[in-house]
């Protein structure tokens, strides 16, 4: 059985590590990229089921990366969760208008990303007996 892939695009290895740890309970393959340009390459290579995309990065930021993902027929249908340190309601609306499925600030509970990932990948929570 092929497990869905999740692509994490963030210049911070520490943040990628925290998000990957949070998603490790899902039966998914995690792929990582350190900026938007590398992330676009990985998106085309792996065609992941979900992308978690940081807003502020060197080389290519999250806004441009999201625009390119949504403009490309090969990647336009991949759901994207935007990740930002910048808690801003206007920015959230702008990112959703550009096609992001969700916008999560890094200071929110990390479990929120897990909940959104399960929703977007249409995964069911593990039964309690199985989880234990």
């Amino acid at each position: 059985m092929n497990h869905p892939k999740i692509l994490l695009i963030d210049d911070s290895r520490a943040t990628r590590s925290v998000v990957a740890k949070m998603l490790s309970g899902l039966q998914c393959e995690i792929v990582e990229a350190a900026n938007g340009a590398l992330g676009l390459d990985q998106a085309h290579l792996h065609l992941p089921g979900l992308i978690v995309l940081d807003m502020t990065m060197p080389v290519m930021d999250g806004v441009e990366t999201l625009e390119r993902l949504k403009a490309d027929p090969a990647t336009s249908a991949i759901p994207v969760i935007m990740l930002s340190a910048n808690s801003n309601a206007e920015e959230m609306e702008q990112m959703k208008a550009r096609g992001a499925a969700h916008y999560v600030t890094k200071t929110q509970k990390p479990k929120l990303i897990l909940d959104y990932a399960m929703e977007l990948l249409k995964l069911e929570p593990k039964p309690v007996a199985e989880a234990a």
Partner: protein
Amino acid sequence: MSVIATPQDLKMYVDDAVITVFENMLGMMIDPSRYGANLTLLEPQVIGMVSITGATQGVVCLRVSPGFSSEAASAMLEMDEDSLSEPDINDVIGELANMIAGKIKAGLSTGGEPCGLSLPTIVRGRKIDLESISGVKRHSFSFAHDCGPVVLEIYSLE
């Protein structure tokens, strides 16, 4: 910051940001009150700095000791301190400063004003003073943890 906040409001935003980030990202509980304001770190320091740009402007500096920075990186990356590299530690301190700046900015800015955050900068050294240019005010807050003190500074327009 170009947005006026009372000292009480600023302290409330800073306390909330620092405590939330350390708890959510590192599982570290820190105390905002033990040392009081204007604590000076005398030992070598690792400083993470992030600028807030746009309608709200300022610089946020997170100062910790090298020992504390290693503890924080170990907690966030779930790695032994011995196996951490300097770039690993810089990454963690920069990201913590980034998250704290974002949360403080959200508390201070009024709705709808566009503003952003710079990429973090890391400075390491002993006895580092950041001097303000005319019209810029330094606000300092300190926090305590078993691993040592944490100092959070905000440089803003008066």
